[in-house]
């Protein structure tokens, strides 16, 4: 890396995408890459608080988790897992396409990613409404309906379970974790739309594709968090 960026006069030679304080596209790309990785680290730590709360409560009250997980719809959760994994593939494909100057393919792949993200949110919405309807909400407001309790007995395959105390704690944790994850999906939708616009108007090329790659990295972490949430919440037992 040269230090010629002190000289104001060489800005004329800079490509338009290169910010004035960087000396080369490589330096700009590397800075962005390290920046986004650090951001992902903060994201992991941000979620870690919730994972830690999950671990503490599951260790102290395994019976709550065993009983409560019967209320969750494993099929819906599984579909959502597949949808997110698919979207991770398509966004990675989009990055590859941008690097190869295949603009149309890149836009297409980003659009598929966007559709997957939207599908995830729709399924999540159906799940949430169902939970609200059944009275399966957090903390103080938790009041499962008779129908919900009957369903659990059906799921438990004849095994008679005693309803544990403080069952609502599971749903507090469930809504905090999936809710925070949902907010991240919504943020991802916003960024992906922005990337579709920028890719379509030709901002990116094999010379400059950093922002698409950074978006993809963010999307992978959103996907990855879900991959942990699904077994921890839906597949207990």
């Amino acid at each position, binding site marked *: *890396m*040269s*230090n010629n*960026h*002190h000289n*104001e006069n060489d800005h004329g030679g800079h490509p338009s995408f290169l*910010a*004035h*304080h960087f000396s080369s596209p490589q*330096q700009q790309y*590397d*800075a962005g890459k*390290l*920046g986004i990785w*650090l*951001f992902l*680290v*903060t*994201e992991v*730590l*941000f*979620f*870690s*608080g*919730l994972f*830690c*709360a999950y671990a*503490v*409560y599951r260790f*102290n009250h395994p019976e709550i988790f065993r009983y409560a997980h019967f209320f969750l719809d494993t099929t819906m959760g599984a579909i959502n897992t597949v949808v997110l994994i698919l979207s991770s593939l398509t966004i990675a494909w989009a990055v590859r396409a941008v690097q190869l100057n295949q603009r149309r393919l890149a836009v297409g792949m980003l659009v598929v990613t966007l559709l997957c993200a939207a599908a995830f949110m729709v399924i999540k919405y159906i799940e949430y409404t169902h939970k609200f309807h059944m009275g399966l909400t*957090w*903390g*103080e*407001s938790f009041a499962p309906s008779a129908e919900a309790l009957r369903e659990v007995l059906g799921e438990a395959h004849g095994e008679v379970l005693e309803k544990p*105390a*403080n069952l*609502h*704690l599971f749903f*507090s*944790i469930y*809504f*905090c974790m999936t809710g*925070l994850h949902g907010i991240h999906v919504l943020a991802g939708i916003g960024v992906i739309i922005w990337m579709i616009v920028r890719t379509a108007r030709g901002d990116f090329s094999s010379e400059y594709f950093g922002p698409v790659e950074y978006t993809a990295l963010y999307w992978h972490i959103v996907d990855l968090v879900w991959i942990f949430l699904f077994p921890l919440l839906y597949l207990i037992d």
Partner: protein
Amino acid sequence: MSTTNYLTCSKGWKSWFLTLDHKRIGVMYLTAVLSSFALGGLFALAVRLELFQPGQQFMDPTTYNRMFTLHGAVMVFLFIIPSIPAAFGNFVLPIMLGAQDVAFPRLNLASFYLWMAGAVFFLVSLLGGGIETGWTFYTPYSTTTADSSVVSALMGVFVLGFSSIFTGMNFIVTIHQMRPKGMTWFKMPLFLWAIYGTALIQVLATPVLGITGLLLIVERVAHIGVFDPALGGDPVLFQHFFWFYSHPAVYIMILPAMGIVSELIAAGSRKEIFGYRFIAFSSIAIAILGFLVWGHHMFTSGQSVAASVVFSALTFTVAIPSAIKVFNWLSTMYKGAIVLNTPMCYGLSFISLFGIGGLTGLFLGTLSVDIHLHDTYFIVAHFHYVMMGSTAVAFMGGLHYWWPKMFGKMYNEALARVCCLFVFIGFNLTFLPQFVLGTRGMPRRYFDYPERFQFLHQLSTIGAVMLFITFFVMFSYLLHSLVRGKPAPMNPWGANTNEWKCSSPPPFNNFDVPPPMENPYDHTNLVFDEKLGGYRAKQVINS
């Protein structure tokens, strides 16, 4: 040489409020944190005046609770945490490297506006009834106390956390990626090593505070029960979460201060810094060890004895890198040609106050002794010796050290030295008596006290008033210097780090000519020039 500098190169409010220049953002941060310092100081003064005599003086107990809570919250979240990294770090980091700006200038500006948003949330909670939970927001106080604006204060903490994260990310990437050719890791000034260690903590610890604040907001608003024992939750879990951030945060506060002191002591001793690598690596060691000791805040909260023993042992290990720094500073001064200019006076003040603050920490880290001292004035005195006696004193040292560079003006040196002395005396008068109060059993945060404690409380209050007057005088002569001060030379203290190789104030691009990348602590080539009022290189080429 350019005829304009970063202050004069463009005009109008937009050129400041939308600036991407790290120097202007640094100056805006400086103004902002100094205002918070003044506000937090007023709250502290109110607390001390109320405690001048037993019984009620001029505020009721609830107002008193709000005053010490706001004092703590404003000082910690709005002043100390952003103070040195965001104000001085922003200003000098790229210049010390010889770079043109930080890696992400827009993120830098965003971080400043997040700070502003956080400050607004704090003001909202101040006007909307105040908070009386203490700055630690312990549950169940924070989940059950009525008529207090805990939620907006927590929103403030959350937003300020992201401001801090963005600053930290920016600094790490800048140090990794923006070093020009020749600026190797071991040619970096020690302030940058300290800032780097700080940034690591900012990035790795602050998100946990974010999620804790968020959970507490949800707990208070929607009663989810995670922290509320009435709903089967665990209030001690909150303490673990809170201190997992807030203990490392103590090192966000002290590490940059140690970085400043390394610069002040080296420049003021006219000698190469002793043990450069040890000081550099001890910063990183402190950053790492800082993550492993949070449990020492919870010795009396019912955590298991085994955990307490481990946390106590780990706590003592932090003393090692801290002592490494102190001994290296002392060795730097040994046989140096010490110049007692204002920055050096603050450096010396730091070493003695940090010595007391650090050593009293050992009493608190000892399990059996902590049972007696826990939640007394002893702990209040201890952390004020570290937070104020060390960090705020180093901040003032940095302010006097870089002021000529930032604004191109010299302040009244004699008056500044007198003020430094009065800060030292006033500080000790305020907090030394509190060690005694604590060991005699005066609990912290109490509104009232028995008469036998009155004398010590009065000493403390007199010290606080003295500090208040001194800071008032300090800000007056600093502001006066902006208008009437002598123009500052390029290098008033004879330091060899890169920020002294550009004009005062620096040009917009930081350097007209790239600075040579040399040993930042080699002072042998610098001589004092009466005509310049500062130092210059010995050999003048082309003369």
